[in-house]
């Protein structure tokens, strides 16, 4: 620590990164998990896994590295047995009075539509569309070929087009 005279110390750089990017990372995590508590847990896990290697990471592209850890952690979680829980009710019981607002309707529709995708489709779609990563970067993050990313993204979009929950929201945009 403290060997680099130009860049801030790893500890400071890590703090700056977390302060600057945690909200964006949480948004990505929410699109993957559909739950803010899980999203926070996922981001914290990804950051905790990245921190010990921060000295090396910060010289390259820390955000890409953290997102790669985040996405792979999430995919690992999905493979775990206890993550195989099947939510029985579409709505959480603690829904606020604003449950019927347009914002909530959109959120539920998108969450439901994303839940209908496979894990890999959802990962590709979120990284490619929401995080605006290139197909090459997505392929590197997921450890697959660029062609696989293209075909997976196309399949995901095709499935979303058929999803009736999004049809009402996107009909004027003719998705």
């Amino acid at each position, binding site marked *: 620590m403290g060997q680099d005279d130009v860049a801030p110390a790893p500890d400071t750089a890590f*703090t700056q990164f977390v302060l600057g990017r945690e909200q964006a990372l949480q*948004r990505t995590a929410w699109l993957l998990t559909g739950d803010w508590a899980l999203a926070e847990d996922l981001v914290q896990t990804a950051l905790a896994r990245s*921190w010990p290697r921060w000295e090396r990471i910060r010289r390259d592209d820390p955000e890409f590295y953290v997102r790669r850890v985040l996405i792979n952690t999430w995919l690992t979680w999905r493979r775990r047995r*206890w993550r195989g829980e099947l939510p029985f009710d579409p709505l959480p019981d603690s829904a606020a009075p604003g449950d019927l607002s347009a914002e909530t309707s959109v959120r539920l529709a998108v969450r439901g539509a994303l839940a209908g995708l496979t894990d890999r489709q959802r990962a590709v*779609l979120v990284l490619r*569309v929401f995080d605006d990563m290139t197909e090459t970067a997505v392929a590197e993050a997921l450890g697959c070929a660029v062609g696989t990313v293209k075909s997976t993204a196309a399949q995901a979009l095709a499935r979303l087009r058929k999803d009736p929950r999004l049809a009402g929201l996107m009909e004027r945009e003719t*998705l």
Partner: protein
Amino acid sequence: MSEIDSQLRELLEQAVGEPPRHIAVPAVRRRVIRRRITDTAAAVIAVVAVAVGGTAVAARFTNASGAGAAPNAAQGSPRYYLQVTANAGTGDAGREVTAQVTARGTGGRPAVTMTLSDALLVRSSRTGAVTGRIGCPEGAGWWVDETGIAAVIDRTFVVACIEQPAALKPDADTTVERLFWVRLAASGRVAAMSPVPGGRIARTGGGLTSMAATPDGREVAFAYSPGNGRMDVEVLNTVTGQRALWRGPNLGDYWGLSLTSDGRELVFTGAPCLGVGRCSSPATIMAVSPASRGGSLASAQVIAGDENLQTFAAVSPDGSTVTVLTALPGGALTVQRIWARSGRVLQTLYSRPVTGTITVGFLSADPTGRYLIVNATVAGHNVNGWLRNGRLIPLQLGGSLYSEAW
């Protein structure tokens, strides 16, 4: 980025909104430290396990039938919990129905009022998501008893269903309840539901006030009022169908039943009544043994008790200690482990200073006795969660909560 991509991104942005909380760097660092400690501990445990592996395996087979074993001890906190709730105001009102049912005692004695609900939810302990819903198999005329749930091992529970029509008869002095096994799949859905042998209860003036089961489900204990102001406790052997009756005094109230893992000792909280309507204080933690013998509750051994305390207790699987949830108005909400023999405090698991009113809801231990759900109302707010390292980890609530088990 194509047009469709842009439109979709806009929609995703709209759906995501703002995260409710910020992530703090210290929290990440604590997680790193915990991870290192866990990794180190895992390495040490692995070395120790290899060293003593042969002995451990031998001991496991030797003790396979041992009644004192805690079958879930190594599996961490329970994955699911059951929640009986009226679920009011959640948007699910069409499916959640509650009713005030009055069953009169013989000869028009004071009525017993109870709340019934068909909302028995299975929730994930980790995410709070509803993963299953349990209804009584007989159909629409049957309701889940608000306090009739108890947990046994392997994601299995005992659930009490009560027959509505009998309870609604104006002069009914009996109602019928049936006990069922409910087994959950790994996904949290209900995998199977079947009647408990000998689990038909036909003498209740009201519903059950409490139910408990041994971890292996061999013994199930339940408390109820026969309808004349008295309260009895029965212990059912689910293998033989035999039942032992513990007859209460003429006036009394008993709740918070718990059994040791061998089913030998039954611990409960009671309020010896000084007169009608004066049964709430002092609350006393008591035990009877052997539970399968039956007899008079008046002969119960007193473990602990204190005037003005609201108390709810759960005995440990080996019977050596009792975990007690107490509330002293204007004082504190505490969970303490006490020695069963002397009543002396062994350890304070949780303590929260309270100003204002406080009402104890319930204390529910998992089959290992390690993991505890605590429920209380503090200054008008419902406190509901499970204990971990002295902290209360919140559990998802759903409407008006009556009881939980895991």
